[in-house]
């Protein structure tokens, strides 16, 4: 076989492989949209569920928004601070290595384990009960590694010369980080936030025991209330309730996907605005 021909074969193989990656995504969106759009109506989006499977999903939408927002509020400050410390301050010693190991391991823990951990620590031991607060904390622990890793990566990508110049002009280390490193790492950090939003809003297992209610038609009034959440609502409607039409499940799915995309969009636009200001 001549090299040219071989080249062609390899290229087409590579092309087909990358095509295979987008096919599932395309199919998922296609089916969710095709089936789900049938049940979407103003009423579906703004009313409470009635006789499980009927009615709307409003409390679940709001619940998911709260859970996601709460998770971001807790995990982002914590994760960014930890990321800055690990990337800028930490010396290469046993403790640092342990922390890094812990982060890698946290990222690999199955989500149901976080759920049980949250049940033990927040719900029972700290007496938060099954509540928004417990759910947000549990989800925060789950997404923390994503935020920390993204922050570390983003800080590492800021050229070393930025720090050198700043330090050589007599700035302190904190001043350097605050004014010469962080602003340029912001975009990368936001990428981590976007990823964690996707993860937090879509997970069922961590909120199963810590926050989610099967049915709760009112919106939460305090952080100690339970909430309905779209992924859990989808799970119960699809598996627990007899005689629900399939398309209702698809409808909930569609709402969840669109919601995540919308939240991500806000973060994406923020990142775009910040990147525009970048001077290099």
């Amino acid at each position, binding site marked *: 076989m001549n090299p040219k021909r071989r080249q062609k074969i390899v290229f087409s193989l590579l092309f087909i492989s990358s095509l295979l990656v987008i096919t599932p995504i395309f199919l998922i969106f296609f089916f969710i949209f095709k089936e789900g759009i049938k049940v979407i109506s103003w009423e579906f989006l703004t009313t409470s569920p009635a006789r499980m499977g009927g009615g709307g999903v409003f409390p679940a939408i709001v619940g998911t928004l709260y859970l996601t927002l709460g998770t971001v509020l807790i995990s982002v400050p914590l994760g960014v601070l930890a990321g800055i410390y690990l990337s800028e301050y930490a010396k290469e010693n046993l403790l640092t290595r342990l922390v890094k190991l812990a982060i890698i391991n946290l990222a690999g823990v199955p989500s149901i384990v976080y759920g049980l951990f949250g049940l033990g620590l927040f719900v*029972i031991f700290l007496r938060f009960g099954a509540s928004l607060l417990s759910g947000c904390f549990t989800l925060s622990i789950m997404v923390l590694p994503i935020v920390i890793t993204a922050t570390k990566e983003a800080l590492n990508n800021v050229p070393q010369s930025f720090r050198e110049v700043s330090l050589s002009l007599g700035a302190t280390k904190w001043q350097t980080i605050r004014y010469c490193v962080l602003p340029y790492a912001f975009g990368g950090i936001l990428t981590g936030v976007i990823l964690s939003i996707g993860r937090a809003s879509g997970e069922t297992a961590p909120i199963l025991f810590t926050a989610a209610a099967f049915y*709760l038609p009112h919106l939460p*009034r*305090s952080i100690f209330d339970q909430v309905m959440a779209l992924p859990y609502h989808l799970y*119960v409607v699809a598996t*627990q309730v007899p005689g629900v039409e399939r398309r209702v499940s698809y409808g909930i799915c569609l709402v969840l996907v669109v919601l995540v995309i919308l939240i991500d969009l806000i973060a994406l636009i*923020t990142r775009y*605005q910040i990147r525009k200001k970048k001077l290099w």
Partner: protein
Amino acid sequence: MKIKIAWVSIICFFLSINFSYAQGRRVLQIKGSDTMVNLVQAWAEEFMKKNPSASIAVTGGGSGVGIASLINKTCDIAESSRKMKLKEIELAKSKGVEPKEFIVGYDGLAVVVHPSNPVDKLTFSQLSDIFTGKIKNWKELGGRGAKIVLLSREVNSGTHIFFKEQVLRRGDEKSKAEFAPAALLIPSSQAIADEIAQNPQAIGYYGIGYVSEKQKAVAVARDDESPYVKPTLETVMDKSYAIWRPLFFYTDGQPTGLIKEFIDFVLSDDGQKIVKELDFVPLRIIE
């Protein structure tokens, strides 16, 4: 700058949603049986229609989960499709919880097969042999020559425990009969129903409310002399059908306030009508 305004307005939006709902309403937490969760949801919905100020959260997870959270004081009412075990009552008392029991309805358990399955009646001892794995082929029961696929709820389920005690062990407390290891443990009644609908070899059990035309409920006889009875609302109510169970609410001590109001509603004629609507069996006949 624009971005900052956008963020601030988003946060304000959330706060305003919260404050607009910030009235001093208490949330009633009801947790437990997956079998009852749809029923309790319907009760909660009707109750809240009548008492717009009340707020009720319903969560599933299984009877065991409900009882555990009553003991941990993380719920106000535990829904359970089985009686609390002595051990659980002792544990509750040691933690200062006084479980009080209410029977809120009945549930007939149907034994279900694929509609194309020629087998349509079974005795208790046959059922016991099927689910413990002694009878492995439909041929032994007069059906087609095919392996029996056993479907069961998982061990946390009140339905699982009830079926084991009443059918596999036939009410004998000393019996050690267990589900065959080959039995598939499935997390919800609806999932068993879906599986039965597509698998002609499968047999499973669940509340009569989950039976549709896609499955066939077999007639059951207590022993060889008794008549075979099909599970319906009427046969469960007059107790001629053998596999039925009470559905329970457990509260911590004598219920008061909102908890009492809710239980009163559940036991009222209006509440019991809903039991019938959801294909469970009401406590009494309601015109």
